C-alpha cells in the first residue's frame, strides 16, 4: 500500500474516534476536581487543574488510538495470526482476536454506509424528526450487527473453519512487523506511564 494511502486511511479512521475523545475530554474537564478557577462559563467553573487533566487524558487516548490504528494498518492480520501462533498463544485466543478485528472492520464499513443513508435522507428534515430517524436507524443497525455476526460464523463454517484460523501462504510475522509492534508498544507505555 502506498504511504499516502495509509495516511488517508488513518485520518479516515481517526475521524470516527476524535469526536468521541473530545467529548470525553469535555466530560473530564467538567468533572475533574480543581482549586484554581480560570473562568466561569454559564455558571460552570473551569479550573486550571481540570484543564490540564482533560488535555493530557485526551492526548494519551489519542496517542493510544493512533498507535493501534497504525498497527492494524501496517501489520496484516494474517501476519499477526502467524506471530501469535509462533509464541504459542492458544488457538481460541487467536481465533477470537481474528474474528474481533474482522467483525469490527465489517461493522465500521456497515456503519459508514448507514450514515451515508441517514445523511441522504435527513437533509431536509427538521431536527426532532432527524433525531427520530437517527434513532430508528441506529436500532436497525444494531439488529443488523447481530445478524451480521451470525452470517460471519455461517460463512466461516461453510468454508471449513474448525476453530483454527488457517495459516495462509506467505503470511509470516516479519522483522518489519516486530519493529512496528515495538514502536506501538513504546507509545502505549509512554502514554500510560507519563
Amino acid at each position, binding site marked *: 500500500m502506498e504511504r499516502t494511502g495509509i495516511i488517508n486511511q488513518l485520518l479516515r479512521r481517526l475521524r470516527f474516534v476524535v469526536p468521541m475523545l473530545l467529548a470525553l475530554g469535555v466530560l473530564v474537564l467538567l468533572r475533574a476536581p480543581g482549586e484554581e478557577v480560570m473562568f466561569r462559563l454559564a455558571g460552570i467553573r473551569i479550573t486550571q487543574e481540570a484543564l490540564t487533566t482533560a488535555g493530557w487524558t485526551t492526548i494519551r487516548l489519542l496517542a493510544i488510538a493512533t498507535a493501534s490504528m497504525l498497527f492494524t494498518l501496517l501489520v*496484516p*492480520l*494474517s501476519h499477526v495470526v502467524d506471530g501469535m501462533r509462533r509464541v504459542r498463544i492458544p488457538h481460541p485466543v487467536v481465533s477470537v482476536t481474528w474474528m474481533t478485528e*474482522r467483525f469490527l*472492520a*465489517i461493522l465500521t*464499513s456497515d456503519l459508514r454506509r448507514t450514515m451515508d443513508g441517514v445523511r441522504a435522507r435527513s437533509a431536509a428534515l427538521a431536527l426532532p424528526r432527524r433525531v427520530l430517524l437517527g434513532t430508528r436507524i441506529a436500532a436497525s443497525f444494531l439488529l443488523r450487527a447481530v445478524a451480521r455476526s451470525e*452470517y*460471519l460464523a*455461517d*460463512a*466461516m*463454517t*461453510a*468454508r*471449513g*473453519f*474448525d476453530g*483454527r484460523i*488457517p*495459516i*495462509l*501462504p*506467505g503470511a509470516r510475522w516479519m522483522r518489519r512487523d516486530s519493529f512496528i509492534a515495538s514502536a506501538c508498544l513504546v507509545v502505549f507505555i509512554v502514554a500510560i506511564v507519563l
Partner: protein
Amino acid sequence: MKRETSPHPERILDCRGLHCAWPGGALALEDVDLTMRRGERVALIGPNGAGKSTLLRALIGLVPFEGEIHVEGLALRKSTLRDIRLRIGLVFQHPDDQLFSPSIAEDVAFGPAAMGLSADEVTERVREALDTTGLGEMAARNPLELSYGERRRAAIATVLSMRPVLLAMDEPSSNLDPAHRRRLIRWLQEQTDLTLLLATHDLDMAAETCTRAVLLSRRIVADGPIRDILADRALLERHDLEPPLGMQGMRYYET
C-alpha cells in the same frame, strides 16, 4: 427413524421429505424430495420467496429442517457437518454474507487453507479461482471496498477455490453486468464435469447452463428436462416466472 447412510451412494444429493419452518411458524419448504446424480446440472427456479435460498442453506445445515439430507451417501447431522460443507460449495445470495477477510486473495485462500492443503496448492487454487472470476488484478483489494458485482465475483471465487463436489449457487447472476454474467455462464458451460445446483429466476441463464429444472414454490411443483419446463408457459406464469422472450432462439446447454 433416520438412516445413517443412503441406500443410493451414487447420488450426490438425496433429500427426502424436507420441511423447513421459520421461528414464526411460516413454512418455507414443504415435503421437498430432491435427488441429484454426479454430473447433473439442475436449475432450481421459482419466484421470490419460493424457498430457494432456504433449501440451499438447509443443504449445508444452516437452517433447521425436518426430513433427511444425504450428500454422497453421508447423512447430514452434527458429526458430518464439516465433511458435508467441504463437499457442497454454496455461493450465498448476498456476497456481504460470504466475504470476511481483509483482502480478496486471503478470502479465496481461507477455504483451501482450512482444508489443510499445502501452501503451493492453496496458491495455485487462489490463482485459478481469481482468473476464472476475472479478479486477478484485484487480489490485494479489501472486499468491503468493492462494487457489488465485484463482491459477487469474489464470493464465487471463495467457493471455487474449494473445488466442491456439488456447486450450489444462489442467484449468481443478480446484479452482475452483462459481460460478467456472460463470462460466468461461459465458465459454467466449460465445466463439463460439474455437478451444479443453480437457484435463479434468470431463466435464460438456467437454460444455458442446466439440463434439468426443478420448479419450487414452497413445494416442488415440477421437475424434469429444462426444455420441457421452460416450454410450459402456463406453468411458469402460474408461478410468477416470466417465460424467456425468444423461446425459438433460446440457447440450451448441450451435453
